């Protein structure tokens, strides 16, 4: 992590905020502002947060993962008290009979990046430079930690009303248990979960995601995406946007939406629907691209052959100078675009990783057995 800041102070926090939005095409602005204010206040009150590189984790006895659950729109309506993170961490500490040594974010995008800074500052703990996804996936259990054999439970949930709920699950049912609690909590809550020793975390964390977001926050528009190793699929023009109306092409509706993801749409925004974006390549072979999307682009076909698929992130960038990420819901025919892929962390490319990334995701169930 050469050149990476070792501390997140007020200035670095602003860079992190900017960088965490680069890939977040559909983030809700008001919820993001609430999260930013929260992090600013925490850093101002408790001082800068120290960043821990993954190789510094060995020897730490307990690291905990923090994330928002529920809807970001609710976060903007029911404002946090600022005590939620501490209450959730303390509850888990009480249950486990040990003090936490470090905080790690489940993902480092949008509101979740800022929440993890606020949590670390509030608890006076260092923040791990890394996260449990490397990108954003909608379910609690869709993490590299799960792939490493770490259970999400026990999990402590702190609501803005001052309630704390601790969930212990025999395994695999955390999502089902937490989901009904969220509306009762007022729409959102802070979840602290995936408690594990530093050595385990060091082996399962996707490293460097916090410092990457900070670097992106200082980049010029031209090399905005330099911190990610982009692979360009094509440059072309959108020729059609289709909404296939079939009943079994796509999986069940989203279990529920977690706030803060760059590609998840805040509930209760317009329900997302399966969308096909057709792009005619304007250079090279003039291939026929089809981007299959449901919330995010799940699959890219070039002349019918898969060229990229989730869990790699497929992004549609506007071909104009500012190279903004184009939300799938806002894709319209005639727009010049660039289609790029950001590779997912290596853990996601194992068979188990692919299965976990897609199981709760929105792709057709039988695609698990497919080559893509």
């Amino acid at each position, binding site marked *: 992590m050469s050149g990476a800041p070792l501390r997140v102070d007020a200035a670095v926090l602003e860079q992190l905020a900017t960088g965490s939005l680069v890939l977040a095409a559909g983030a809700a602005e008001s919820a993001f502002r609430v999260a930013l204010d929260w992090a600013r206040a925490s850093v101002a009150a408790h001082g800068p947060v120290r960043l821990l590189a993954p190789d510094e984790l060995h020897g730490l006895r307990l690291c905990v993962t923090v994330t928002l659950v529920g809807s970001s729109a609710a976060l903007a309506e029911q404002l946090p008290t600022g005590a939620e993170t501490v209450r959730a961490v303390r509850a888990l500490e009480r249950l486990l009979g040990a003090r936490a040594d470090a905080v790690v974010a489940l993902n480092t995008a949008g509101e979740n990046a800022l929440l993890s800074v606020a949590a670390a500052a509030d608890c006076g703990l260092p923040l791990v430079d890394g996260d449990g996804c490397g990108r954003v996936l909608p379910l609690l259990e869709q993490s590299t930690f799960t792939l490493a054999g770490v259970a999400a439970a026990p999990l402590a949930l702190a609501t803005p009303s001052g309630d704390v709920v601790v969930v212990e699950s025999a395994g695999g049912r955390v999502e089902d248990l937490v989901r009904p609690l969220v509306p009762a909590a007022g729409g959102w809550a802070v979840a602290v979960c995936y408690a594990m020793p530093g050595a385990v975390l060091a082996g399962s964390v996707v490293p460097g995601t916090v410092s990457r977001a900070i670097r992106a926050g200082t980049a010029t528009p031209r090399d905005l995406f330099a911190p990610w190793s982009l692979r360009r699929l094509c440059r072309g023009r959108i020729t059609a946007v289709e909404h*296939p109306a079939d009943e079994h092409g796509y999986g069940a509706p989203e279990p529920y939406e977690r706030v803060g993801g760059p590609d998840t749409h805040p509930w209760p925004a317009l329900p997302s629907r399966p969308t096909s974006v057709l792009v005619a390549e304007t250079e090279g072979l003039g291939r026929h691209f089809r981007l*299959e999307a449901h919330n995010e682009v799940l699959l890219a076909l070039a*002349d019918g052959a898969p060229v990229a698929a989730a869990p790699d992130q497929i992004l549609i960038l506007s071909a104009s100078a500012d190279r903004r990420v184009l939300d799938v819901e806002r894709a319209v025919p005639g727009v010049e675009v660039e289609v790029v892929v950001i590779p997912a962390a290596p853990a996601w490319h194992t068979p188990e990783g692919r299965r976990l990334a897609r199981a709760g995701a929105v792709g*057709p169930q*039988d695609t698990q057995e497919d*080559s893509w």
Partner: protein
Amino acid sequence: MVTRPTGRPVREGALTVAELVQQGRLAGVRMSGASGRGTEVRSVRIVDRTAALDTLEPHTAVVLTGRVAAAGWTVEMALRKAWEHAAACVVVTESAGRPGSVGALADRLGVPLLVIDEDPLDAAVRIASAVARPDAGRTALVAQAARALADAGLHAGRVLSALHAVLPSTAVALTGTADEVLAGRRAALSVEGGALTVRVEVPDGDGGSLGTLVARSGSRVAGWEETVRDVLGLAVAPLTAWCALRRLDDERTGHRAELLLRRLLKADARALGDDGPGAGPGEEERAEAAALGWPARGPLVAYALRPVAGREGPDPGPALRAVWATVGPGGPLVAYEGCWVAWQSVPPAEGADPLDDATRHLTDALAALAAYVPVAGGVAGTADSLLSLGPVLADACAAAGVAAAGDPGSVVRGDRMGAAQLLSAVPTELLRGPAEVVLAPLLAADRDGTLLRTLAVVLDAGAAPTAAAEVLGVHRNTVAARLERIRSLGFDPDDASQRLALHLACRVLLSGDGDGER
């Protein structure tokens, strides 16, 4: 190689995608990626999982079902895999409700995408049976054509419609002997592009040619030409029968008209002799004539047509009637006394000679007829009414008989037939023998023909030697001396009992010499 009872070989090649579509076995099929339609189909594979696409065999018709058929992207993947594995085509049902953008990839890859209206499994079974017996499909199309043609009956327009119904993307036309379109679509004669053209001759039933059936198809698939030829062949018999039927009908009409004219004239003759009230004989015939639109109001001029001597071919009646209807001066054309006669109402003459106009009209009509039937004609008139039409028709026929001795297209007026014209109508070939017998003594003595020519001129001139000398350009005494010699041989031009026979014999014998005395 298998042969049918007719001995024609059956093509045993595998079914192509285009044939599969053309045979109409798949309900409501639409094809994208048509550039690959020439690919052979040798097997069928039902695919319900994308993983199965990795094991496609070449020349397979890939029928998508279930989830693979449900989304655009799965169909696109199937197209791609089909392309990679050289499969024949991808078949998907329309009910999946997929937008048409997938067709663009089919076009790009050249892999036919068949979108059908029916259950994919039913389609798979039908494709399998078509693949198993490719010739059965072709036979089925031919059978379908036979049924459609049987339903169409004997009518050129309906036969062509039936052909269009069974031959997809094919234009068919029936052209006449001059390449004019008699029925069907003009597009069949188009010469653009490299499409397939099939021509089949259609006989007219009398040993001639009615025309040609021309089919032009956008498809150049192997075997398709043969199928089109088979189907066109089925249409030949109904078209020939249609043609024969029309001719028979025409002939029957002609006979009926002929009979009616005879009855009409006979009745009129009776009416002329009968002073009784008008409601007498012929009333029924006149009503029938009026129904046929025959001219009845006088004055009437009569036309008669007759093939020129030596040019009589097969019955020219149908052709004459057909052409007369368009180029003739008017009126029906009815067979009568070895001629075809017509008559026409003309405006009452006021100074002008109605026969002048009639002659001109008939001359024009005969010129137009010359290309079909070489005929000559006569005009006569005028009759005050149908009652007096008989004699006028007889005059016209006589005039036509005279004209027929001349060149095709010549017209003779019944009121201006001279003796020479009448004589020229004599059948010289028949009379040459008897004439030579009658004049044998004269011919024996007459080495250079002088005596024969002198006798003919003297008879023409009414036995006046002076006038004859002028015609012959000799002295009167020379004529008198030759006459003496002729009389000494036993021929007397002044003898009334001999004169007609002598005159006729001279004419007959001199007619072949091209003499200019007429």
